């Protein structure tokens, strides 16, 4: 039986009709809403490619049923910024060339956003620990950590969000 779920994605209210209410949020984002920035990595909540913010908390959404976000606010990488108006994290990732294949980056940006929201001046160790839920297989870790530090400084200086 079709059920309709209402929540917000990147500030916009959405209504999604699903025959299967266990449909993972990731599938809803990618296949129903066309928001492909959040990537599928494992479907097991292990790799962090699918990290989104749910009411501000970083959560993996590849196995999270859509019904569980009813009434909640979901932020995806598309909600951080775009080429015209990049988030300081996105800007810093580009400046540091923090990535190789880039498949993990959307999830990492979300984890980093969650970190900076609660800690405006994280140390290298704190950043690394906050990103331990995200796997990067290419070995861009140090660039990513540098980019997060840089974005934190930009945000602290009041130049960004």
């Amino acid at each position: 039986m079709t059920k309709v779920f209402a929540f917000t994605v990147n500030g916009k209210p959405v209504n999604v009709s699903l025959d299967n209410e266990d449909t993972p949020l990731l599938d809803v984002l990618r296949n129903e809403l066309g928001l492909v920035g959040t990537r599928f990595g494992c479907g097991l909540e292990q790799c962090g490619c699918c990290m989104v913010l749910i009411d501000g908390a970083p959560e993996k959404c590849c196995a999270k049923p859509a019904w569980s976000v009813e009434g909640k606010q979901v932020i995806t990488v598309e909600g951080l910024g775009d080429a015209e108006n990049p988030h300081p994290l996105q800007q810093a990732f580009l400046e540091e060339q923090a990535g190789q294949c880039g498949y993990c980056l959307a999830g990492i940006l979300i984890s980093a956003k969650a970190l900076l929201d609660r800690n405006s001046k994280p140390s290298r160790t704190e950043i690394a620990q906050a990103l331990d839920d995200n796997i990067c297989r290419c070995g861009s870790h140090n660039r990513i950590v540098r980019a997060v530090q840089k974005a934190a400084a930009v945000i602290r200086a009041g130049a960004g969000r």
Partner: protein
Amino acid sequence: MNAPLAGPLNDNPNLDRWVAFPAPGKITVLTGRVELGQGVLTAMAQIAADELDVAIERITIRSGDTEKAPNEGYTAGSMSIQFGGVALRQACADVRALFLDQAAKALGCNVTELSIRDGRLFRSGTSTGQDYWTLSGAVDLGVKATGRGERKSVADLQNIGTSSARVDLPAKVFGESAFIHDLRLEGMVHARVVRQPNRGATIGSIDENAIRRAAKGPIEFVRNGNFLAIIGDNETAVEAAGVSAVKHVSWQNVEAPAPTQQEASWLLQKPVVERAFGAPEGGNPQNRERYEATYTRGYLAHASISPSCGLALYRDGRLTVWTHCQGVYPLRAALAKALKLEPSSIIVHHVQGSGCYGHNGADDAAADAAIIAMQKPGQPIRIRWRREEEFIYEPKTPAMVVKVRALLDDDGKPVDWTQEIWSPTHNLRPGAGGNLLGAIALPNPPPEPPPNDVPEANGGGATRNAEPLYHIAAKRILHHLVTETPVRTSALRGLGAMPNVFALECCIDDLAQRAGQDPVQYRLSITADPRARAVIEKVAAMAKWDAGTAGGTGRGRGIAFARYKNRAAYSAVIVDLSVDEEIRLHRVWCATDAGLVVNPDGVANQLEGGIIQSASWVLKEQVRFDNGVASFDWETYPVLKFSEVPEIEIELINTKDEAPLGVGEVTAGPTAAAIGNAVSHALGARIRDLPLTRERIMAALLRE
């Protein structure tokens, strides 16, 4: 006389295979090399911008496309810039020369009076009103490259040698459609394959009802022999059905790898094809001091962050395939053979995937999509492997045993070196005769390919970097090519280079210790090649290497060196770490000589990536078997985490007058060996088996 054309240009001599002028102000550069996260598209754009004298923004790169792009085989072996880039550079220089000829003809002047700035023609510094696009109608690029176009001198390079920003990164950072996984075709259906566990396994029973119940949405079964797939409009339903089918489809003739087969030592008992290279055996004085040690490394997974994906559409007798594989032309040939189609009726497009680091499931996923598409004409098929499927069915890099025997002179320096290797093949790519996984499940499956490995002329597979670059009078390689393996094996970053460099560079440290010499000094004393010496000296200076630091304290420092394939980049690595029950990496220094560097930051990124990935292999990774592949997710196959990654310092030696040398794989071997040597220094005991697990550390401590 012109220099001989670089290999890929010889293979694809027509200039219109490399450069096109599609619209005013626009240039399309074609390359057979594909983006795997290594930044190759950016580097190719830099090369073309310099040789065509245009702003880099004018260039669009089209890569990996059997309709248009040159056939450069595989994007592999750190050869893209060293060969493909050199070829593109010459092609662009030849194109530029043709336009200069045409402009001189049109303007009635001498070519020497002309110059090009951002695509516009100037005569003695004055604008002529002509540009590439006004002239392009009169210039036939369907001609063969001659190599007569003069390439820019190093002093005139504007883009090559600068750290241009990666062209592909913004889409990935802004979460745009960037990967094959994001591709959506009109009317597309999703698919999952119920994988045949091994060659010869046959479907026993299929509990269709149970699978349909698990799907919670409409699905359809597609079967051809023992190739079974599930398709449907709703990906969630298809995925759930795919997961469920693992339990609800039974197979006969299953051969599941056992734990006893997972260690490299298992290979010692297996049938082999004998191969030998280098100096003949014997003829050495019997009274020489001998050194012998055996090293092993288990099976590794590529463990790409995203499972493989492929799309295919069969319509009007033509098959179109979208893939993230490393070689669209070899895939096309393999698909033609498997599906009994003419290659000319198949188009293969490369679309970016996640980093692959070698032969992962990409080709097989493309074949899966193609097989299903052939049964569903007119319907675009998208398959995405499941995570578990990728881990279990991707080709593994083979386990290896490497035994080093050295005879020493009176100063403790090696005069005779034998590197004896037991290893299955490192190349079962479709282009090397390997079968596409789905094809093996079809009726009348293709035979198993004959035992083979990468030819020595291409750098060897299991033998890669088995010959030390050091000055040693007699060197030989004995390769026991193991022909029976518990799992399919194929290429992973560096092939045999990592285990070989690990073995030989650990031996060099042992020999230095035996001779009472400092590892850096000992290496320099047997190194003639000035570029090799330079990276060793440089990295020692970077790390402030102190000869004679006491070992056995729990803190260790190690060095190692290699020139990848003994013909690509040179790299030396120093690692600082500490060991208690586990190994903690603190800092890594790396000095590399890659000749003319197209994009220094891109090279640094590749070197860093190689260091981190190698550290992950050495500290954590081994594919385990237990009634099948027991490493099937990120918990059973853990890789290095952010908090475990050391700080890394990279320096490139300035040798821009030298030819560019491939860097993608060079740090893997030296990093592994530098970690091995640092652990030995920290413990005062040598561990010769990879990965360097806690159990092995404890065992080494107990031995001491």
